[in-house]
């Protein structure tokens, strides 16, 4: 999009709801882009297509910009799929593509589609070739589309005895695509066009005029829905997935007020409405907990009353065990939310707050604008869809670690109680019996390592975001190495909490990445980790000196002076950050004595 002098064009609102007119959405994008801070990340989309998808631009740009990311879009030719992927000068192979998105339709892929006797085998063969080329492509993430199963059957109401009708063939082809994505996830993800039209319907999704005039088959509802799905993936890749759900109780987890209606009077039921809507809502809360999202409560109530419901109500799916924290008192909810954030060592911008009371929500919106607020809708029958609808918590992969994270925070509560019993910090730390297991990363850890690079914001010296593909690259190269820290104490394991990536150039080792998960901080584990890694890397590569850099971000100011602890000397202040140099193979400081190091 060309930039123009804004005063010439006119004063258009910079914040428009997605329900605004198309012309207002287009007009707003320039102003939104100009308002972005210089630190806002760029994100490059490449479209591999045989149909016209450019109509998505207003919606995709608007959604990306309101998420404070600068989008750039590049399109391949029409139906030159292999050339676009293989030719070194194609727009899709030059420059960095963050996400390659396919827009491939059968009508253009196979000219025999729709004719009697058509089978999907030719299309499948071509797709296999395309997928193989995609596996070798440099794009970090690839989003594949499914095909839209025909709306009308060519055989009418009868059922084909050998499942050879077009719908069955397309369904099989889609299974092939889905299976490929499953096997190659998370680098590959799915844009399920068939499910989207299922959601939206043929007439709201399809514009046959533009299909015939310019091979652009989709209406606004479909394009905006597809843009929304793409942005969910972008948010996940940029480490912005929400991690914590805070729930009010009365008229949120159940209908009614437990302090007034009592256990028998509140509405929460697996059969009867409206209780069933709350029951179905609780199911979605459990689904999120299963994915490793932290679930907490924030309610104006007596603790006793709330826990009576969780412990004893026959239809409460949510139990005490699901909670990673709670603030049930008569105090101001804004203060309670801030407390929860401190307890969980999590920024408020990772929080989602659900309440039925618009006054409470408005106060949070004003005082803590970084928290995403959701209101229990008046149309209670639409309530159960609320938490999953916008993909706020979406990540591209979950690991066992995610699912155990809630348990870790519960254990953290225990540790904090323990802390009160010790006179000083050192006594407390010694009593924890910390063990740091530090080893070169294995292939099985790639997913968790990539995830940590995407999600860790505070203790992160360089905030470089890597995908599984990138980590595998580091592992495969002889000039780079990846070390991981798995920590535990006498209360249990903290899991994989540290990542150290180094490269070397001759006799100089360069720290590319050093990060620690929030939950492992405050125990000096980072010192044990860094010293051990530098020792081992220094020996393996016979280094004479080290280079490191601190790249400041909105969230990592706590590690600004980190390298100085190890005797690194500051060098020049570059455009992006401060570089450091250590003129020795290892630092001279000793590791913390109370941490036992396990090597493999």
């Amino acid at each position, binding site marked *: *999009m*060309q930039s*123009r002098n804004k005063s010439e*064009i006119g004063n258009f609102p910079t914040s428009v709801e997605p329900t605004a*007119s198309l012309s207002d959405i*287009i007009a707003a994008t320039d102003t939104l882009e100009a308002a972005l801070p210089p630190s806002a990340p760029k994100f490059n989309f490449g479209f591999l297509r045989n149909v016209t998808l450019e109509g998505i631009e207003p919606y995709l740009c608007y959604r990306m910009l309101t998420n404070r990311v600068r989008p750039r879009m590049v399109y391949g030719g029409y139906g030159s799929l292999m050339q676009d992927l293989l030719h070194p000068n194609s727009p899709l192979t030059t420059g960095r593509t963050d996400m390659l998105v396919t827009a491939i339709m059968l009508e253009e892929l196979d000219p025999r589609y729709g004719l009697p006797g058509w089978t999907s085998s030719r299309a499948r063969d071509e797709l296999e070739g395309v997928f193989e080329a995609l596996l070798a492509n440099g794009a970090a993430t690839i989003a594949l589309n499914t095909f839209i199963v025909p709306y009308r059957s060519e055989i009418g109401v009868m059922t084909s005895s050998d499942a050879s009708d077009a719908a069955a063939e397309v369904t099989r082809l889609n299974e092939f695509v889905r299976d490929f994505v499953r096997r190659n996830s998370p680098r590959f993800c799915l844009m399920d066009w068939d499910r989207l039209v299922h959601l939206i319907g043929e007439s709201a999704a399809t514009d046959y*005029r533009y299909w015939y005039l310019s091979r652009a088959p989709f209406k*606004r509802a479909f394009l905006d829905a597809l843009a929304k799905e793409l942005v969910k993936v972008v948010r996940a890749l940029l480490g912005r997935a929400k991690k914590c759900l805070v729930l009010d109780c009365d008229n949120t987890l159940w209908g009614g007020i437990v302090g007034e209606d009592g256990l028998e009077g509140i509405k929460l039921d697996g059969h009867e409405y409206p209780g069933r809507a709350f029951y179905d809502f609780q199911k979605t809360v459990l689904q999120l907990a299963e994915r490793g999202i932290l679930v907490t409560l924030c309610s104006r109530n007596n603790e006793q009353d709330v826990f009576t419901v969780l412990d004893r109500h026959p239809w409460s799916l949510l139990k005490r065990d699901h909670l990673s924290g709670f603030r049930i008192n008569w105090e101001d909810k804004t203060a309670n939310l801030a407390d929860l954030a401190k307890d969980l060592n999590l920024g408020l911008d990772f929080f989602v707050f659900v309440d039925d009371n618009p006054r409470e929500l408005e106060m949070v919106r004003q005082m803590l604008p970084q928290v995403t607020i959701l209101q229990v809708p008046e149309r209670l029958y639409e309530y159960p869809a609320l938490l999953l609808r916008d993909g706020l918590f979406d990540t591209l992969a979950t690991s066992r670690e995610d699912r155990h994270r809630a348990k870790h925070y519960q254990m953290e509560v225990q540790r904090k109680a323990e802390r009160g019993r010790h006179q000083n910090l050192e006594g407390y730390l010694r009593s924890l019996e910390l063990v740091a297991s530090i080893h070169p990363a294995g292939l099985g850890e790639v997913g968790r390592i990539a995830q940590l690079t995407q999600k860790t914001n505070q203790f992160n010296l360089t905030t470089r975001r890597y995908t599984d593909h990138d980590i595998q690259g580091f592992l495969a190269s002889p000039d780079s190495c990846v070390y991981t820290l798995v920590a535990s104490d006498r209360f249990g394991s903290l899991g994989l909490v540290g990542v150290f990536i180094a490269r070397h150039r001759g006799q100089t080792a360069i720290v590319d990445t050093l990060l620690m998960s929030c939950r492992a901080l405050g125990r000096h584990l980072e010192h044990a980790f860094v010293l051990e890694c530098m020792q081992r890397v220094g020996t393996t590569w016979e280094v004479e000196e080290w280079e490191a850099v601190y790249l400041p971000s909105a969230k990592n100011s706590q590690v600004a002076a980190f390298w100085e602890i190890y005797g690194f000397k500051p060098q020049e202040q570059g455009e992006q950050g401060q570089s450091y140099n250590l003129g020795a193979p290892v630092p001279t400081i000793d590791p913390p004595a109370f941490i036992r190091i396990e090597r493999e």
Partner: protein
Amino acid sequence: MSDIENRTRTVMTKVLQTPAQEIAAEASRKNLAAWDSLAHMNLMLALEEEFGVEFSDQEIADCDNLPLLLDTLRSKYT
């Protein structure tokens, strides 16, 4: 200037991202670089939203200039 022409010009400035003074009375796809095929599709869709009308496939293909566009809208919009 009529109400239809006013509103059409407003939509055009937003969609083509071109100041009003640069949209001549004889503006067309031939003389306005910003009015490319993607902009044309968005323009016709935006005008349908603005006036609550629907263009036929023929009208979409034919209305590549402002005078004809305004005539077409006048005949559809009451």
